């Protein structure tokens, strides 16, 4: 049995509010050592009345801690956000596949990270791994992060974390109140950014646009999907996405986002 995946206690060691309703939380947990970019954890609301975990992507992890960044969207996330340093929550993970880390294939390629809203956190972890000194991913010719926000009230949360890693970071807002006026694809086009490989996370309309852009521009795109989940481990079949080919589990073109995903090659999903 895979003991490290079981639901377990994790102590909050830091909480910060990044923007209205958006929080960053650091946990002291053994899970940090196994986590890969693009994976997620199930975080269980603390009071016990709510029974299902909330799937949240891993924003960074190192030898000592694991960070999540999430938005309060309902009662469960509100309960989680009300916790403070020293409090203990149950978490389960790391779950899901994560972003592919193509070794030789990335040499001399331009990588673009596209994060829309709460898509930025999963890409931050990827950026961190890419920026590590001994990273084989440093073979990329260039890495650019483009972060899209609704408007300036979101304080371009996490953008500075990307910049600190030495990654060129471009900000776009839907209403033009900060950075480029438009979405992340608008920013790619207006800045004429070359994208051989795209890793993207964000709302579904954005990911559909990324899939389309990648197809038109002959880029590889890996997109991280979000779907409502119950179990998080591939049992309930609640979180499926339409796929072009037969899925591994049911052979009906409905892959499990929690297990076969959350990261898919855009050409494999029918979104």
């Amino acid at each position: 049995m895979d003991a490290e995946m079981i639901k377990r206690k994790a102590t909050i060691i830091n909480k910060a509010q990044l923007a209205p309703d958006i929080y960053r939380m650091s946990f002291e947990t053994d899970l940090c050592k196994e986590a890969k970019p693009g994976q997620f954890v199930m975080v269980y609301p603390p009071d016990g009345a709510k029974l299902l975990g909330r799937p949240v992507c891993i924003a960074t992890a190192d030898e000592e801690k694991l960070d999540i960044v999430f938005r309060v969207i309902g009662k469960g996330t509100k309960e989680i956000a009300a916790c403070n340093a020293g409090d203990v929550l149950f978490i389960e993970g790391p779950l899901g596949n994560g972003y592919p880390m193509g070794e030789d294939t990335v040499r001399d390629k331009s990588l673009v990270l596209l994060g829309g809203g709460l898509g930025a956190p999963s890409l931050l972890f990827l950026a961190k791994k890419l920026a590590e000194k001994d990273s084989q991913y440093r073979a990329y010719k260039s890495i650019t992060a483009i972060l899209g926000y609704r408007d300036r009230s979101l304080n371009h949360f996490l953008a500075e974390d990307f910049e600190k890693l030495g990654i060129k970071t471009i900000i776009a807002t839907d209403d033009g109140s900060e950075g480029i006026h438009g979405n992340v694809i608008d920013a790619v086009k207006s800045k004429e950014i070359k994208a051989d490989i795209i890793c993207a996370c964000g709302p579904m309309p954005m990911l559909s646009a990324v899939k389309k852009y990648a197809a038109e521009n002959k880029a590889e795109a890996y997109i991280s999907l979000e779907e409502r989940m119950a179990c998080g481990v591939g049992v309930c079949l609640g979180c499926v996405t339409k796929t072009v080919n037969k899925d591994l589990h049911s052979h009906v073109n409905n892959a499990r986002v929690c297990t076969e995903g959350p990261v898919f090659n855009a050409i494999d999903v029918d979104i």
Partner: protein
Amino acid sequence: MEEHQKKQNPDLTVQFAGHTFKNPITVASGTFGSGIEYSRFVDLNMLGAITTKGVSDKPWEGNPTPRVTETPSGMMNAIGLQNPGIDVFIERDLKFLEAYDVPVIVNICGHSTEEYEAVVERLADDDRVTMLEINVSCPNVKQGAIQFGTNPDMLTEVTGRCKAKAKDKPVIMKLTPNVTSIAEMAKAAEAGGADGISLINTLTAMKIDIYKREFVLANKTGGLSGPAIHPVAVRMVYEASHAVNIPVIGMGGVASAEDAIEMMMAGATMVAVGMMNFTEPDITIRIIEGIKAYMADTGTERISDIIGML
């Protein structure tokens, strides 16, 4: 000394449809897959039986998403019985379960009597299968399923047809709570020759997002499960078990050893844990341990003594 040993080794075995199970705890179909995923968390050999997710004769796509949502003390689902069909199930899932020493109850779904029969036939001679559970109660499939489970004559008919194809395999009919009289449906299954019944499947429910002004689930309605429905399930297990002479697998929001014991006192011979597997992947094991502790505390030597005691 003898008394002490009894307390240390309480007898958890139960008899169901001619088979002896090492303990009364199984899982509710659809909440545990075929055990492949949860085998990372749970020693499957500890379970009284494993009940697999509904399998049909051909692969089923299931419903559009969103398929699941949390509700107070429970959840709603409208998966729509997505499954790979009996061919893959036999080659992959039953193959996987060969490595375990746990009885297998295969849940079967279909849109028509012929579809149920086709799957029953495929499993009737398979030694890896202990019992068959016929899902005539899924609220999330447009054709078949629940229609068979809400009309007593149709239920008797489909039960008889499945029994005729099942050879020596006991046939359990899984009943829906979405009926006026559960006792009448239990009798209808018994009249068709069922070897047992299991209940309750989920309660048909609806949730609306008042800000988006739309249904939360793409299917509009979904099946409500979890602790919220447990008292309803206990009542229905009581009513159904007292209406028939065949054994009952009780299920519905079981979240603790206490809930399982309550279900058995109401009349269940075995108890299935459902939605709570999602919350506590190893909850079945802890429920079995909790039943042992209850037996030691109360001087209960055989768990079978409490079945239907009220």
